[in-house]
């Protein structure tokens, strides 16, 4: 029942997605195939994990510009410990995730205890993390990964592992935000920080949680990416934060905080992914792609907000 109403709130995006999928299935031979749809799912997973993570931060009326750089740093750390015969495969994975978590925690501490605006804090982390990635990797990609780790880029029963990760993360996040007290507190802090404080909520703790969680998920995305390109690349993830935040905002989360759902984020991620994939299949030149993508996104968001107002 709740799923139903939430669905209707984002009907604008769903409608456009429907049109796109129909039109693309008709005009290309390959869009509707299982292999292509699997590709799309796989291609959106990394952005999807990032988008879910940054949803938490955006809900508290914050922002995180360091996503791309932390993805690179986590990938580098993961790859450094993933050489064959070194450690069991769980070690580089956990270290990569932990790296992201540490960066996120740092962001959170500066925002809450330091009182610095999230834009500035995460902008700083963006450059620092990128620099650290270059330092740890000596400026070149960290290669020679054990097959145990590169297998993460593969499938399990026909479903890409990356997609499973995304799905699990999205499900857990959605359940958390709806049913956990801390989830409710996140909405309260984003909706009216002062009122939340008066109501007895520890705003500091809530924000710290949001940034750290975002960092952990960014670390996970970094590990998944490293597995996919079989290296820890210090230059990976350029501008990934833009795609992630765009997906979240398209999905209905307000940049002012307090409003938004994981379902919306998923829809935003899917919309961008379907457009990218579809335009590639239609063999549209790269230069036109940018313009068309922009038009479709603006159209979808306009319709969505109009419909949500009523």
């Amino acid at each position, binding site marked *: 029942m709740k799923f139903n109403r939430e669905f209707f709130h984002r009907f604008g995006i769903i409608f456009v997605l429907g049109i796109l999928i129909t039109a693309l299935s008709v005009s290309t031979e390959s869009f509707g195939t299982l292999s292509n749809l699997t590709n799309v799912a796989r291609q959106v997973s990394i952005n999807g994990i990032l988008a879910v993570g940054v949803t938490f931060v955006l809900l508290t009326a914050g922002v995180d510009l360091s996503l791309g750089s932390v993805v690179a740093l986590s990938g580098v750390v993961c790859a450094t410990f993933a050489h064959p015969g070194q450690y069991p495969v769980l070690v580089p994975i956990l270290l990569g995730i932990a790296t992201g978590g540490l960066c996120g925690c740092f962001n959170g501490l500066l925002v809450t205890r330091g009182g610095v605006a999230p834009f500035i804090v995460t902008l700083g982390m963006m450059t620092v993390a990128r620099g650290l990635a270059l330092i740890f990797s000596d400026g070149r990609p960290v290669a020679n990964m054990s097959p145990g780790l590169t297998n993460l880029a593969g499938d399990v029963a026909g479903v890409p592992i990356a997609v499973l990760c995304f799905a699990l993360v999205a499900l857990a996040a959605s359940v958390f935000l709806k049913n*956990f*007290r801390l989830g409710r507190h996140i909405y309260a802090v984003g*909706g009216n920080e002062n*009122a939340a404080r*008066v109501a007895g909520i520890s705003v500091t703790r809530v924000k710290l949680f949001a940034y750290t969680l975002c960092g952990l998920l960014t670390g996970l995305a970094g590990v998944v990416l490293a597995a996919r390109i079989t290296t820890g690349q210090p230059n990976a993830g350029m501008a990934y934060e833009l795609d992630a935040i765009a997906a979240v905002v398209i999905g209905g989360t307000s940049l002012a905080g*307090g409003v938004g759902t994981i379902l919306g984020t998923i829809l935003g991620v899917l919309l961008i992914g379907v457009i990218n994939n579809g335009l590639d299949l239609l063999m549209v030149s790269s230069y036109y792609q940018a313009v068309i993508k922009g038009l479709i996104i603006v159209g979808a968001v306009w319709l969505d907000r109009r419909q949500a107002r009523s």
Partner: protein
Amino acid sequence: MLVAQGLSKKFGDLTVLKAVSVEFRPGEVHALMGENGAGKSTLMKLLAGLYQPDAGTITWRGHPVHWRSPLEALAQGIAMIHQELMPIPDLTVAENILLGREPTNAWGWLDQKLLQAEAVAWLKVLDCHLDPQTRMRDLTVAQTQVVEIAKALGRRADVILMDEPTAALSDHECTALFKAIRQLCQRGVAVVYTTHKMDEVFQLADRITVLRDGEWVTTQPASNFTPASLISHMVGRDLATVFPALTPASQEVVLEVQALTREPYFRKVSFQLHRGEVLGLAGLMGAGRTELVSALYGLLPATSGTITLKGQPVVLRNPADALAHGVGMVTEDRKGLGIIPALSVQQNLTLTALHRFTQAGVILGTQEKQVSQAEMTRFKIKARGLTQPIRELSGGNQQKVLLARMLLDAPEIVILDEPTRGIDIGAKSEIYALIGQLTAAGKAVLLVSSELPEVLALSHRILVLRQGDLALEIPASDATPEKVLSNAMPL
């Protein structure tokens, strides 16, 4: 010159105004009276162009008009001052007053001197001596309201609609406002006005229109009414005494404050609060009452002095500390410090007490719903349902949600800062009854209020603050309005 005929307005399935016809004349103060939800705000917003009527016509100076936005109405000379204040927080007082009509020279250069001078002039009309260079966000609610009024006055409108303008003003500012309104009337401006303060209506209004449940009840010269007859028109029934009987307080001290200080707001304040007692805090705007009670709730911690709760000295650094010690508060600024606008009624209601239906971090949905439903019924909160966004409720209903929220966490000491501001007479009496129930149940209440009759009738004892100092402490039985006021006025 401004005539409404047969105006109707629906919001979804809810009809808020049904075929209302009223006529407003120049140079006259016309009061719109009615309970919350009677349709007064809606009528004014229709006249000001914020909403469009579903049926009926508005005639201005003889011509039918269809405002599509408040700007059109404003251009024609109809200005509105809202109940929910909307200043631009980071601009100065002067900039807000002259918003949109800033004086510039031929090249568009801002004339700062003229800006300041005109701002000061309008503030003077309201007997206000604020520095026009102050930033809006540094003002209190009451000061913001004065500035908003100056803004509308400066627009030289022919009709000024005021939605509860005096809600946050103390008696002495009200007098200044009334003087200004009288001046406007002499200039031929029509003033349309709503308030919940009975005595004000009779001081000010020439004619009164009563609305009830969206329908027009009557329009007559003010002299035709008595307070009692007015109330019964508004409510549709006879209201017995509004204030509950006072149950005696116990001798047990639950809160003791010694030499509490936070410059420049209050200094060396000491008092005791007993179980079952209502302690009223009276004083003028700026006397430091809100700051004092905020210190007791951890919002604005004191810099020196001690707070002792049930014999134990405590340090309250934030509201969470206060709540843990059984102190609850409803602030005077429900928009800024009270409601979470994007969340629903239920989510707002259970926000503080959420830990009572949480297990291992998970919210128990059914329990939360049951409790919320019960509270909604108990407090008679008017809303489409538990899931309606709270920002869509009227001010009075929002206040009820905030009260319910605080009480749900079962505090032993209850701080109420202007709890009945902007609430109609029917709801007010409900809140008074609630205060009576709280004390009967053994809770202690600190009541801050600018409405003297309220403070005098509800309290066991009264503290009067004057510019941060405790000027007077007397039992309510010995208190008179004159004694309180004279101690509240600056020396």
